């Protein structure tokens, strides 16, 4: 037996012993000979590494100082809906836009921007609190973006205001599957278009928040514009009066991330004009 095969045999024996100690790791030595197994293992490893990288980028500090009031004025973008066919279920709403499909495919092809799970409200509060503490200490650029699928209450109706609001269509209340149909694809777009390190949270049934780390006002504006460009064709295709409201806020000097987050949420939470 050659020296090389002896070495390989010893390596396999060591790996087998390690596998016996920790069976959940899998048999590493077997991967060396098979390209397909190596490919699958490498892809799984990289996916895990990116998930761990994203998790490790979450600040771990607790706020030690109370945050102060402040915040910049948010700017809203609104795309309003009209009559038309709804977007098919299961198709990303980014696929409906003019040029949006190309951008969406390109985005999905970038391995470094693998989307993470959407946070819930409690996790969002934690993330904002930690980021507020970090920002208070170290400063830097951060922006908070809020998105809401809202009903338009003031529409030009064929009744000229009579018999309101019964004459106004309400897709979110009429359709019990509306949150799954409209909010879930919206969440997918938000997290696909955000960087992997930017937390995306669904803070209410029809409301999302995104923490844009290392993004200034221009970055937030560009992100909001991308979301609008992707969603506008889809929103206009939804029957009834549906509006997509987007607002962002950046913490001002002496302010805090938490106030900016509240400001952004308040800006989209009210009735649409």
């Amino acid at each position, binding site marked *: 037996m050659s020296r090389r095969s002896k070495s390989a045999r010893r*390596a396999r024996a*060591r*790996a087998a*012993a*390690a*596998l*016996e*100690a*920790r069976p959940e*790791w*899998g048999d*590493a*030595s077997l*991967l*060396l000979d098979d*390209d397909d197994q*190596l*490919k*699958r*293992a*490498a*892809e799984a*490893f*990289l996916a*895990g*590494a*990116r998930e*761990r*990288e994203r998790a*490790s980028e979450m600040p*771990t*500090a607790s706020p030690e100082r109370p945050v102060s009031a402040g915040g910049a004025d948010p700017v809203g973008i609104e795309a309003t809906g009209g009559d038309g066919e709804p977007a098919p279920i299961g198709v990303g709403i980014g696929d409906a836009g003019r040029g949006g499909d190309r951008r969406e495919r390109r985005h999905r*092809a*970038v*391995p*470094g921007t693998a989307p993470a799970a959407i946070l819930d409200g409690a996790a969002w509060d934690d993330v904002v609190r930690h980021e507020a503490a970090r920002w208070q200490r170290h400063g830097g650029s951060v922006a908070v973006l809020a998105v809401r699928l809202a009903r338009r209450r003031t529409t030009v109706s064929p009744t000229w205001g009579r018999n309101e609001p019964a004459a106004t269509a309400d897709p979110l209340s009429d359709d019990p599957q509306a949150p799954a149909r409209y909010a879930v694809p919206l969440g997918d777009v938000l997290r696909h278009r955000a960087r992997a390190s930017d937390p995306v949270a669904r803070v209410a049934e029809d409301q999302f928040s995104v923490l844009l780390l290392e993004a200034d006002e221009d970055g937030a504006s560009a992100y909001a514009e991308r979301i609008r460009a992707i969603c506008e064709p889809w929103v206009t295709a939804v029957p009834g009066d549906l509006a997509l409201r987007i607002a962002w806020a950046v913490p001002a000097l002496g302010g805090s991330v938490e106030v900016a987050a509240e400001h952004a949420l308040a800006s989209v939470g009210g009735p649409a004009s």
Partner: protein
Amino acid sequence: MARGPRDMPFAIRTARIVQPRGRCLRTIAVISRKGGSGKTTTSVNLAAALAERGEPVLVIDLDPQGSATEALGARPAGREAFDVMIGTRELARSATPTRFRDLWVVPSSPWLATAEQTLLGDLTVAVARAIQRLDRRWAFAIVDCPPSMTYISVGALTGVREVVIPVETHAIAVTGVAPVISEVVRLRTSLNPHLDSVQIVPSRTNRTRHSRAIIDELTQSYRELVTTTRIRESIRVPEAWAARMPVVAYDPTSGVAGDFRALAREIVDPGRAADDGPAGPWWRDLLPAVGAGG
């Protein structure tokens, strides 16, 4: 508070470096998650210092930016060069000699960035196999990796047997060491059981107390994984870069050139770190359960 080495998911204890025995090709990946930590500078100048000792060295530039290629005065490769690598799993065909003796380079190509998005896991396999199949005409193959965990990086780490992590002596850089070590340990258990050595090289050091404190912290946290050689910050490095030369060739008498020669010496002969006791696998103390099994 920033996440530090002590927050790692496993216990850091004394780790030892295994010195490969006998004359063979040593494959070393230079990785770091942080940009500007000195990956390319370390790759190029370590390779040049090793070549100066008479060891034939191959620098494999896998960073799509192609900085190592430029630093060695070579021209970036086209897509064809890497098509050959993907198809044949051989890097030797793409290797070109530089104007420095015993120093060869596999030039980078901007196409690698595209390949990263299209080939995905196939690129990992191709890179790993190409490194594993390098012939023995070179004594060292030094792989300059991209500054993030990508398919290329994973392929390089799967193919090599040693890893060098340059760490800038700055508080920002230190927090990035633990995740890299942790990923390397995980990769060793899942993809490359032959990964024998990890070395942390403090780079861009200066005389400030902060720099010394960072080196102390690294030494306390990672013990023998930290090399005794520190690479100082010097204006000679960017000057050499501008001249498209390794600093050991640009200004052989400079202090930083001496640092890289010392690093080359330490890599060729790890020295005292392995003399404290019987050498064992470096990962044994990082993952005690593996040590119990192996």
